[in-house]
């Protein structure tokens, strides 16, 4: 069908972000709105700069990775995390930003968890940073709840055919963090070493942690 091969009207299939002219139009438009809101005294440009800087520097998947590595090495923390992730993470000095109602869900040999937001783009920002475009886009949002194995195939991920897949649709202000399985061959590793193996996608459920010794 139309999606599957090089069709003559592919030029109609564009999205905005592929058009340079569109982008500069957007820049002008956003700048205009910022001017209005600044002139009217609702915001100040320095505050906007500070918000962007905070997103760029203070959040990101390194936060989630440290939580996962801790859970891999500390059974009591793992238990506490699965019981109440917000509370458990709040006890860690190095991750201060965590919202209410964060739920950690554990992958096992029997069950794989995968997180989606079919209605918009809900995502555990404090743990993973801003979501990637694919997480917010129609292919993932539409298919994750109906054909999760097909979605995983798009990521090159294959699960045993008898593994249960649990899809969590983030339809409220709860947020979900997948606790992936600890890779084999990491016995005795430190939390910091383990954290290096934890990928963003492994905490969404569309990937696995890196194997020890794989290219970083």
């Amino acid at each position, binding site marked *: 069908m139309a999606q599957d091969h090089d069709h003559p009207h592919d030029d109609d299939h564009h999205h905005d972000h592929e058009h340079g002219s569109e982008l500069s139009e957007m820049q002008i438009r956003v700048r205009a709105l910022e001017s*209005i809101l600044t002139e009217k005294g609702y915001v100040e440009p320095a505050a906007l700069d500070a918000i962007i800087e905070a997103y760029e520097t203070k959040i990101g998947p390194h936060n989630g990775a440290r939580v996962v590595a801790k859970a891999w090495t500390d059974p009591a923390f793992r238990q506490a995390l699965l019981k109440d992730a917000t509370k458990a993470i709040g006890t860690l000095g190095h991750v201060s930003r965590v919202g209410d109602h964060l739920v950690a869900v554990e992958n096992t040999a029997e069950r794989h968890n995968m997180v989606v937001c079919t209605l918009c783009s809900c995502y555990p920002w404090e743990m993973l940073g801003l979501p990637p475009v694919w997480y917010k886009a129609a292919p993932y949002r539409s298919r994750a709840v109906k054909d999760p194995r097909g979605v995983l195939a798009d990521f090159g991920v294959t699960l045993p055919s008898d593994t249960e897949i649990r899809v969590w649709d983030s339809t409220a202000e709860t947020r979900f963090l997948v606790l992936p399985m600890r890779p084999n061959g990491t016995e005795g590793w430190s939390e910091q070493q383990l954290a290096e193996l934890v990928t963003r996608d492994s905490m969404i459920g569309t990937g696995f942690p890196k194997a020890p010794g794989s290219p970083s």
Partner: protein
Amino acid sequence: MNGVHDMGGMDGFGKVEAEPNEPMFHEQWEGRVLALVRAMGAAGAFNIDTSRFYREALPPHVYLSSSYYKKWLLGLEDLLVDKGFVDADEVKAGHALKETKAPRRGKFTADQVERIMVRGAFGRPAPAPAKFKAGDRVRARNIHPATHTRLPRYVRGHVGIVERDHGCHVFPDSASMEAGENPQWLYTVVFDSAELWGADADPTVKISIDAFEPYLEPI
């Protein structure tokens, strides 16, 4: 509303395409839009549910053909105009022309940034006991409000099991209409894939949503 944003289970959108080493923003204006939305929300011009509703209410072909942050910008413009914070003439002119309508919490300043880097708290004291408990079988109601709701179409009318109780939370259907927080019990409800997608569905798959109590009926 039964908008095109409610796309769980739809076909035809193609493969998931992940971008290797994706930057946080693809264009400088994207970060600016994010910051404007967060700042205006923090100033009290709107709540998160109202802002979601304005994005969902974009014309469906615009919703589907616009990039993520473009949707945010278009929804923000519509919302600020509708609520009287900005006039349509100002958007056209690109600068302020009319009086300022004070947002609920006043100007958003740089010293408040740290506060908004933690997600807002939506848990609220319970106004009534919970109607359901873990293990209960429930049916997602067949509702079709024209306004904002967080009950996706693909579960409506279907039977699932209550798995977790998250306490009481702000009810988006009310908050989005600026009709108060109207807190409601929130549950994780899990469905078998065959219940949602029919006999041909992958039997190893289960799907859960987080459902507010008014979305559910006992069976």
